[in-house]
């Protein structure tokens, strides 16, 4: 008997879910959309993707070593890879190498480890990385390119890609505007939405992802497939994605109905920018979203409404990242007010009254 250890408390059984497994499934779910977009934007995107993830992992290792935490064991949780992956997906696809590296510093060192490492951060690391870069380097962070599928005519080869990523030789002719950015610029020039919409790829192409945009955000359909896979695997629940996209769609549709010349449609808002990526993969980040289902719905609605407001009224054409960060800061408070009702008690914590028998 002495050979067996005495554990004080049960249970003496445990589910097979681990942090590592969870992160791995999220990466798996991201893979199709990512692969498609890497294909769409070609070698420069592949280089940037690799650089950003490597930088995140290296910085995570450095921070862990500095903090005296176990490096290998913690790296194995894959969370740094996931941060790097999501960060890369939110960068302009042909951005130079330093954009990826600096963004990684902000994401991992500032947003995650300055707060105490995994589980402690208030803000979504990838979104902090992206947003700080957008504010600091507005030009580099808003150079979009039209899709140039790998091996197609006009797609840069590996050597040209090195020149783009490491030499900063962005071929001028290639740049394009994102749909949200284009509408915003045209509106500021006094051109109505109804008119500028005509210049954009049709909604079907937008859903498939053949549009200009961040490295990994363009294929709504593949991201949706990944998101559904995560729901099926019970890694995420429907609450945040549905409440976020639902509220975004409803408010956009409402204002579009009121003033179609000024406001784009609900469908347009759903399919453009980082809506799908944000709804399924960013707003659902465990650490920075509320834990209760009710809280998640409140959170999702907040992200949706803020996204729409920022897209329409703030200086930036895209609002998902800002909206997520703003709601991240509210998550602890939302959590406090949306704790589930305890069994046998009222919401206030008082024992339920003894109802008369039915």
């Amino acid at each position, binding site marked *: 008997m002495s050979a067996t250890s005495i554990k004080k408390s*049960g249970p003496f059984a445990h*589910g097979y879910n681990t942090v590592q497994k969870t992160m791995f499934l999220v990466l798996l779910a991201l893979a199709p959309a990512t692969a498609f977009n890497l294909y769409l934007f070609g070698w420069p995107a592949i280089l940037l993707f690799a650089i950003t993830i490597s930088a995140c992992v290296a910085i995570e290792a450095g921070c862990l070593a500095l903090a005296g935490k176990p490096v290998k064991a913690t790296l194995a949780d894959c969370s740094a890879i996931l941060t790097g992956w999501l960060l890369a997906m939110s960068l302009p696809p042909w951005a130079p190498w330093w954009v990826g590296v600096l963004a990684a510093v902000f994401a991992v060192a500032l947003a995650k480890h300055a707060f105490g490492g995994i589980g402690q951060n208030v803000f979504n690391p990838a979104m902090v990385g992206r947003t700080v870069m957008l504010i600091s380097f507005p030009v580099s962070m808003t150079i979009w390119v039209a899709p140039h599928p790998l091996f197609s005519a006009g797609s840069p080869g590996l050597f040209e890609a090195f020149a783009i990523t490491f030499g900063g030789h962005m071929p001028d002719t290639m740049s394009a505007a994102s749909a949200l950015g284009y509408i915003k610029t045209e509106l500021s020039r006094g051109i109505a939405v109804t008119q500028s919409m005509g210049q954009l790829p049709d909604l079907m192409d937008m859903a498939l992802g053949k549009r200009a945009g961040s490295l990994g955000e363009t294929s709504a359909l593949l991201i949706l497939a990944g998101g559904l896979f995560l729901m099926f695997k019970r890694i995420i629940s429907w609450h945040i994605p549905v409440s976020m996209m639902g509220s975004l769609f409803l408010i956009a549709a409402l204002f579009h109905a009121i003033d179609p010349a000024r406001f784009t449609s609900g469908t347009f808002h759903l399919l453009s920018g980082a809506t799908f990526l944000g709804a399924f993969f960013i707003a659902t980040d465990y650490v920075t979203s509320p834990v209760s289902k009710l809280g998640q719905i409140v959170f999702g609605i907040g992200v949706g409404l803020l996204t729409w407001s920022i897209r329409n009224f703030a200086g930036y054409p895209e609002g998902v990242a800002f909206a997520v960060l703003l709601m991240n800061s509210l998550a602890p408070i939302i959590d406090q007010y949306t704790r589930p009702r305890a*069994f046998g*008690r009222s919401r206030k914590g008082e024992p339920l009254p003894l109802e008369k028998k039915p």
Partner: protein
Amino acid sequence: MKLFPILGGIHPEYRKELASEKAIVALPMPVALYIPLQQHIGAPAEVLVNEGDLVKKGQMIARSGGAVSSPQHAATSGRIKAVTDVTAPHPSGLPQTTIILEPDGKDEWGDLPEPITDPFTADPHAIHERVAQSGIVGMGGAAFPSAVKLNLGTQKKLEILLLNGAECEPYLTCDDRVMREYPDEIIDGARIMAHALGTARVVIAIEQNKPQAISIMTKAASAFPDVEVVGVPVQYPMGSERHLVQAITGRETPARKLTADLGVVVHNVATARAVHHAVRFGRPLVARVVTVSGGAIREPNNVMTPIGARIADLIEFCGGFSARPESIVNGGPMMGQPLASLDAPVVKGTSGILALTAEEINDRPTSACIRCGNCVTVCPCGLSPLDMAAFIRKDNLDVAAKLGVMDCFSCGSCSWVCPSHIPLVHYFNYAKGVLNDLERESRKNERIKSLAEVRIIRIEKAAEAKRAALAARKPASDAAPPSTGGEAKAATEEKANT
């Protein structure tokens, strides 16, 4: 029957197939039985025998020690070897007063109380009396004296006797086997209990992962229109009293109330069988079926075990260990207690002895909470385990108490589901222990304080009286007002304090 959903819950690996098809077999009588005086919730029993006494099977060897207590009986005939301290089947491994009985091999019944021939016309009190005398306690694991629970009918209007055959803990199959092999005894016992409680209906709830038990019990119950067998969804912890009542009636037992306040009393199926034996044959509770299972047991089995057999005897009977057990658990893997020693005896609440391998337990190093919310989703009590654990870690037990840690019944669902393998239940058990101690302490202090206050007031009052008496001798005008005011105040205070 319409069922109602319950909150949260998990679907662990049940591994019931290890023992579920093994018919109940009797343990050969060991060389000694160790019968602890406390096998139940409440006061320990009081010894009635001395070293060297010869006893018969079923003879009472320790009597009930209070209103909430239970007597103990000899599980076989033999000689009392000693009354001494022996390791208890408890994680602390602390010793407990125990009667050691040396079987004589004859297994002879002594004089038993007369059977109650027609229990359905008998006075309910006669049945309470018999159940109390027979040492019957809740056999699902809680070991609460059954007679006390059967008495609830005299205080409250009851509607349903809910027989708990859910057996939602993984591995355990003892209730399953008892239901499959002795359905008529269970149903007879249940009907007797229903009569004692004054409930019109008996509902027997069985988790749907026991289809044979459901069909056998349904058949056995078909002769009685007031007895209904219900298959309930497989969802741990369905067997929790309050949750089972909710699943069956849709009603939520308020905090700090009993299910009996809703008109429902819950008893375990094996308890009903024990009641049948006590009432129909006068036989006390001297043996029970124990599931011996787990990956480290060579031949898992369901063993009819005399109360007091050592766990080591039981494991040996089941072929010993086939692998190194990581933990030996008394009860199910979710809510069972780790055993400190194999020398501890089987008691009335022992439903299972599990020898689990490290692989089955699947324990891993703890990592940081990633706020995945899984623990919140699965908690059947609607608590927020991650928050409670965070406050307990900071030793902020007051906040943990406000968040409801005292409502947690340590079902283990949160620990089970946590991807970071945080020992949440361990935190809660710690907090509950400390908070309970604090409350006991503060109640004691309050009592001391109130006693002291009463004393001070009494002294003051005496002084006042003296002064008043003195003043009375003087002209009344200059003394009366202050004294009456003071007296009135002291009087009300004493009233408040008594």
